[in-house]
């Protein structure tokens, strides 16, 4: 036992020494975004003043990744974590924060930002029961598909960046103002372009389009998942085929991270076109940034009407 303790002592000493030597570099603000849309927004507002990485890609389902070692390492070094919240990341983010040993990014600290808290949420369940599937008590968390929500988040995020990195506060404010102007123009353009989409009936894959629907007046008439978070079953798909033959929707929509099989199955049997949407930045070649995300989403939906 003595030998053990004597071997632990120098180890502990070298630990604390290494901790001292490894103070965070002063260069750029390190930002870890939980989803690509928030990574892209930080990029817009911070430019070269921040180094941004996203914990998930557009091809991953943010509900279902793991607190893998590389993410713990990134969380440990982050100055700011920007996540959606509302339990979207409940399966991995709490663990990531606890394991990071980084008090700057804990909930309640300036280095932690939950974007869904900044906007009114849709579909807050009246009844909480897991027999209804994977529902979110705080409401539908997929807030980013309404660009007005992005604008609200941008305002707070810009201030937060300035607060965390006061030396570059002016640069963040300038970029935020410039982003707002460009975004406002873009929203005006998108709303004009999307006018013909009003009332478009859709079968969705997962209930993650609520905010896009509310923004553009799209109508969801069915979902490939029998219940939120439960993968499509053959029985449910057969039921959907029957319903769609009787009363067809205009389009079947799935996201870049979904397996297209279920949508294609329904499309083949009902002759309703299936459309893949990027869902977030990086989900398609054109969705390179937030502007591209909405440009591409609208273009893909409008193509159905032609």
């Amino acid at each position: 036992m003595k030998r053990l303790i004597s071997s632990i002592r120098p180890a502990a000493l070298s630990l604390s020494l290494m901790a001292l030597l490894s103070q965070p570099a002063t260069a750029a603000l390190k930002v870890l975004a939980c989803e690509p849309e928030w990574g892209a927004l930080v990029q817009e507002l911070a430019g070269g003043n921040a180094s941004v990485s996203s914990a998930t890609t557009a091809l991953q389902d943010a509900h279902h990744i793991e607190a893998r070692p590389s993410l713990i390492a990134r969380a440990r070094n982050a100055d700011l974590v920007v996540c959606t919240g509302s339990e979207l990341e409940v399966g991995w983010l709490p663990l990531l924060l606890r394991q990071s040993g980084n008090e700057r990014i804990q909930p309640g600290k300036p280095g932690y930002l939950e974007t869904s808290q900044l906007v009114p949420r849709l579909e807050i369940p009246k009844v909480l029961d897991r027999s209804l599937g994977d529902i979110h008590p705080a409401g539908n968390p997929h807030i980013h598909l309404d660009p007005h929500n992005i604008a609200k988040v941008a305002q707070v995020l810009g201030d937060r960046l300035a607060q965390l990195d006061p030396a570059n506060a002016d640069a963040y404010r300038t970029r935020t103002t410039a982003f707002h102007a460009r975004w406002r123009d873009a929203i005006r353009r998108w709303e004009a372009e999307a006018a013909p989409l009003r009332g478009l009936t859709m079968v969705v894959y997962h209930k993650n389009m609520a905010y896009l629907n509310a923004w553009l007046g799209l109508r969801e008439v069915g979902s490939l998942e029998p219940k939120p978070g439960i993968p499509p079953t053959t029985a449910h798909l057969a039921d959907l085929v029957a319903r769609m033959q009787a009363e067809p929707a205009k389009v079947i929509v799935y996201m870049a991270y979904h397996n297209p099989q279920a949508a294609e199955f329904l499309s083949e049997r009902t002759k309703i076109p299936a459309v893949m949407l990027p869902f977030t930045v990086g989900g398609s070649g054109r969705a390179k940034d937030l502007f591209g995300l909405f440009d591409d989403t609208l273009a893909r939906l409008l193509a159905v009407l032609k």
Partner: protein
Amino acid sequence: MIKQTLMAAALAAALAGPGTAAAVTDTEMKELREQVRQLKQEYERRIDALEQRLKQAEGAAGKAQTSAGQAEAAASRAQATAVSAEAAATSASARPAGENAFNPAVSLILNGVLANLSQDPARHQITGFTPTLGEVGPGNRGLSLAETELVFSANIDPNFRGTLIAALAPDDSIGVEEGFIQSIGLSHGLGIKAGRFFSSVGYQNEIHAHAWDFTDAPLANKVLLGNQLADDGVQVKWVAPTETFVELGAEIGRGRAFPGSNRDKNGAGAGNLFAHLGGDIGASTAWRLGLSHLRTTAQNRNYDDLDSTGTQVNNSFDGSSRLWGLDGVLKWAPNGNPGYNNFKLQGEYFLRREDGNFTYNTANAAGATRATQTDTLRSAQSGWYAQGVYQFMPMWRAGYRYDRLNSGTVKLGLVDSGALAAADFPIYAAHKATRNTLMLDFNPSEFSRLRLQFASDKSRLGATDNQVFLQYIISLGAHGAHKF
């Protein structure tokens, strides 16, 4: 803001109070006035900024109204917002109020097994290794409830989080599986845990049984860690500020459980050092490698055995036990999206050396013809396993595990000196135990799992136990995130 207002009010009250006013000098008064003036300015600046933003928003709204189509969209949006605001209001009021709101998160794991075993589970033995007296057997034949876990956890204050995991055993006893506090507010990558917790030795030892990929633990974990080692102690971990995941940690514990033993002693009875290295290979693959070294001393760590004369004797060990572990896990999913297909490869290797005194004790043996004797014991034993689990379609996974133990060398002074024969210690017969395990599980949701498992278990020398398990594992309530 409210806090500052209160502060200002308190300040004003303090200034107005005659008792305090007498104690306040002129310079202090000036300072206080200056502070109040600054507060006021700060508020005015903020209100101006707010007004500015309001104007901007109004301007934007005004522009939006110029187009009829846009106005309609905005109206529908406003409506949606109003609806959701209303919903938010109702949900806010429906939230539990008062003391109840701070109740810890509670979750419950229900677990049941149907077992079909070709060998009598009462005669279960892993030949070649000291019995650990833990839950290493295959369990009961037939239908039985397996361990139920009741979990409470919550943040205690900005510094600590507390967790209790109680294990309700099917024999109606309750055990504390884990009960610990852990730091949440430390910086520089540090984390501290204190209480009873699963030791960070190897990979699987830290994972709760309900999250294992097979019904039972690997043979190596059974014989070297008594199934799963949870010690009472303190753990300090440090995550390095590097891009590659590097984690170093140390534990000091009581050494209450196998391979140690409970004793009356001040200070620590066990220590564990561990290092983890991990990262990603592209977007699809994540990995972690681990090294660990556990040292403990056992005192009167004893087990019952039958010697060559058929006498029921009690043998005990006093001495040091050192365990080295190497573990690795690799997880793969196309584009890192595990929803449809994913693969998990996991393996661990352990080597244990024990050095001390071994006592052949006949004190309580009826009709014993030999005296109690003590001599040395030196042993070097090892074990490893490798397993792979593949999700071949949503909800369905199949897995295979190979287990192998090497009883290695167990040098008993009592045998070497000729005092007793090797046949007096049948449990230490040389044996290379192996087991092949296949499993198939169905996961209707992330909260439920049904598993079918077949195993051909050659743990006992000269006997193969063919095992079939059918198991359900259900998770109710707030269920926390699982470790990688």
